[in-house]
């Protein structure tokens, strides 16, 4: 039975606290790797010729890659296996060459039947501050 180690200390967490930022420059190799690892072979993500034929400037990133990259920043912060909820709205496409950065800001904390829960707003933005996705997460703390 899994008993994940809790990384966050409930008493030390305050509203407005920010988790360490993860930044990543998106490459076409990322898109191909994610296609292969997830089975999402939509050519708009992996076939430059098809994407341009469809009127796009290039291939663009999978939304679920963006959600996964932001998820990595959440588990780096709270520890793997300690999420209770992770919800996002996809707002913009991502493009190769963009630098994507995570932002995780604590909005509250409460003791619940399921344990000590910390709530945060989560966003992924590019180098110009354009939001690619935004949402919320609930994670467990010790």
């Amino acid at each position, binding site marked *: 039975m*899994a*008993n994940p180690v809790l990384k966050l200390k409930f008493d030390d967490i305050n509203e407005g606290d920010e988790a360490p930022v993860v930044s990543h420059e998106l490459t076409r190799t*990322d898109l191909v790797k994610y296609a292969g690892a997830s089975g999402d072979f939509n050519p708009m993500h992996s076939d430059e010729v098809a994407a341009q034929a469809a009127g796009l400037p290039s291939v663009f990133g999978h939304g*679920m890659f963006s959600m*996964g990259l932001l*998820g990595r920043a959440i588990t780096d912060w709270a520890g793997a*296996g300690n999420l209770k*909820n*992770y919800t996002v709205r*996809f707002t913009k496409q991502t493009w190769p060459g963009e630098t994507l950065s995570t932002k995780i800001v604590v909005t509250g904390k409460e003791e619940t039947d399921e344990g000590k829960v910390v709530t945060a707003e989560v966003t992924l933005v590019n180098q110009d501050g354009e939001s690619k996705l935004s949402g919320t997460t609930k994670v467990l703390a010790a």
Partner: protein
Amino acid sequence: MSFDDFIGKPTGANTIHVERGSVSRFADALTDSNPVYSDLNAAKEAGFDAPPLPPTWTFASAFLGAYAEDQPEDPTGGEGNPMMKIMRGLMKDGGMVLHGEQEFQYHQPVQCGDVLHGEGKITDIYTKESKGKVMTFVVMETVFKNDAGEPVVTEIFNLIHRGK
């Protein structure tokens, strides 16, 4: 068929084997170098018996861990996911299909070696007007249970068709 006729309809069912190869490669594809996903000792130090799942792994799980010999009966009777049928119908008049929102609810940690039983259904379909265009939202919920029948992860997938 009206949209309301689709609400409650099953979208599919899968038996999923959670295996180390797919978990470690999926984490790597997300640039996630946390050793818990690839190193059994690191996973044990983090409180698991085996590597755990990256938060979004189940979204790809029907591709990653479903094998023919132990799949449940197809609840769509071979019709396939009605969500895709709805979107194909809307796309006849053009437009664009977008992944609008995605939610994961985590009920219990999942780790390699677990077998999951996923069942999906359409839970809502609604339209909104935005900038003179009709947006059609189709919401699908998939519940993954463990071998004991307890829910471990619930996914809520919101697909949008934006009309021309």
